[in-house]
């Protein structure tokens, strides 16, 4: 979005997108905190869940509970069918070519670790390089550091400008014959930046380098098409996409996944086992050892259905309006500074207040019912880049409202009053 003071625009969008009706789908949004209505602005940490998701998990345990892929009895067949149906849903949601390219994992973190471990074992050797950006979440840094440490490879970092945008010239310079993989955030959790991933993928592919996109913060805000993006891996977490915790997705290009060795060993991922030799199962099961989070995955399917049914152009216009309004509101409070002012960004507002530590901001906002995150947001290198220890971060979802932004702005004024 571009930030301009035309906050009165989306009257027509409101007709399409009735936020009050949407809010009724999310039971926790009616909660009160310290006697005030909850204003949930910590969506980048985790999102709230619609009733259909909560109900799906309960329904599964009450009426269907059985293990998957291992029984001939009716319940197991039903559980397997539902579980596999979610795989098809996710494939369609991301526009993958085939559901064999959809691996269920615990979350974005495990998906990245899977690629680091398996692709890393296959393709990375001493002297090679892995390229990340300066705005990665720790989960897209540490697995690569571990891999590099093991292999004698080097982690390279694409720098960014003060607005929080990657320097594309530097990026292209850092793509060398030694680069084995580019791993970068589609959307930054600390800054809200939407990276120009199409361009970056094209540049990497010109040198034959595969690209992993960390989509944990992208899928709650944008429609993602992995074939249009032409990425090689895409990872996401269910819990940030209005689904349960403990479920995530690795999308991988079939050709790559086929060539990669297994990640963990165990049940489900094998075809046959003797003590002499084991042959592995086909995709996607090769990467899914052990009993998965069946209930969570089935409930995640409901989250995908819910999100897919939303009127997306109107959702995005609504979120843009929230970000614009919050940005303007913050600008009217003296001594505030926004960290992350990229031209392309989603509803993430990291900010500082002169002489007031983010931790104190968070505590005071909480007293007014406003939930924000304070700290380094698992992105310490981002904080170092700006020479700050922490920020306060308000992050929005489509169920947030302009009234909530006013409550937030008023509470910020109270913060200033407390600190004189």
């Amino acid at each position: 979005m571009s930030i301009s003071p035309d906050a009165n625009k989306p009257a027509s969008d409101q007709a399409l997108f009735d936020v009050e009706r949407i809010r009724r789908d999310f039971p926790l949004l009616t909660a009160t905190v310290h006697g005030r209505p909850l204003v949930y602005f910590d969506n980048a940490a985790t999102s709230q869940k619609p009733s259909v998701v909560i109900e799906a998990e309960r329904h599964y345990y009450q009426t269907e509970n059985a293990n998957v892929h291992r029984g001939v009895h009716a319940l197991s067949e039903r559980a397997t069918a539902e579980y596999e149906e979610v795989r098809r849903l996710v494939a369609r949601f991301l526009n993958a070519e085939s559901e064999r390219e959809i691996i269920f994992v615990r979350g974005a973190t495990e998906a990245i670790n899977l690629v680091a471990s398996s692709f890393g074992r296959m393709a990375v050797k001493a002297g090679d390089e892995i390229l990340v950006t300066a705005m990665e979440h720790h989960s897209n840094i540490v697995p690569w550091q571990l891999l590099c440490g093991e292999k004698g490879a080097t982690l390279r970092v694409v720098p960014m400008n003060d607005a929080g945008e990657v320097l594309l010239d530097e990026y292209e310079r850092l793509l060398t014959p030694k680069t084995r993989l580019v791993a970068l955030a589609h959307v930054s959790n600390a800054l809200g930046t939407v990276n120009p991933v199409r361009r970056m993928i094209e540049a990497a592919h010109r040198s034959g380098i595969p690209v992993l996109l960390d989509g944990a913060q992208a899928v709650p805000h944008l429609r993602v098409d992995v074939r249009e993006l032409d990425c090689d891996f895409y990872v996401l977490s269910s819990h940030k996409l209005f689904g349960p915790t403990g479920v995530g997705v690795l999308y991988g290009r079939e050709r790559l996944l086929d060539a990669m060795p297994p990640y963990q060993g165990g049940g489900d991922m094998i075809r046959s086992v003797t003590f002499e030799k084991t042959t592995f199962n086909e995709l996607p099961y090769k990467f899914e050892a052990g009993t998965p989070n069946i209930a969570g995955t089935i409930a995640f399917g409901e989250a995908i259905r819910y999100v897919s049914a939303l009127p997306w152009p109107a959702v995005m216009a609504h979120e843009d309006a929230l970000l614009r309004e919050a940005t303007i509101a913050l600008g009217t409070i003296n001594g505030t500074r926004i960290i992350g002012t990229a031209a392309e960004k989603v509803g993430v507002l990291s900010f500082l207040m002169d002489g007031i530590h983010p931790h104190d901001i968070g505590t005071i906002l909480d007293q007014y019912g406003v939930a924000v995150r304070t700290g380094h947001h698992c992105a310490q290198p981002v904080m170092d880049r700006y020479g700050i220890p922490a920020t306060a971060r308000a992050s929005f979802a489509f169920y947030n409202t302009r009234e909530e932004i006013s409550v937030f702005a008023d509470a910020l004024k109270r913060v200033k009053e407390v600190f004189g």
Partner: protein
Amino acid sequence: MADLQALYQEIILDHNKNPRNFRVLPDADRVVDAYNPLCGDHYTLYVRLDGDRIADVTFQGSGCAISKASASVMSTVLKGKSIADAQKIFEVFHQLVRGEFKGERDLEHLGKIAAFAGVSEFPTRVKCAILAWHAVRGAVSANEQTVTTE
């Protein structure tokens, strides 16, 4: 809001704004780092000992109002105390911020540290309050065989 006032008492706001003993102590006998990786609060504490007395305590660094005011108040309270007395004050402070203080209801005799009693209503902020205290306690106990447990 009553709770907020209990937390951000005048003394705390004052010590946050104008921290006392906020400087390096060149002739310190003990220098110790206090770091909370969760929120990035980071202080260096300097202690000069004179036999079994704490001759001086100073600090540097940055963090939230609670952690900074706490370090500042601590520096004024511990200066001149014997290590044995300091240990007792550490204990009282810990109990106070955790809401476990069993002493008299009237906290007045505790002096400035009484201002931190309100922290006990904010469990996420207890760590901020004890950060510097914990570090200094470790520093002055270092030559004894004392084990400090959280």
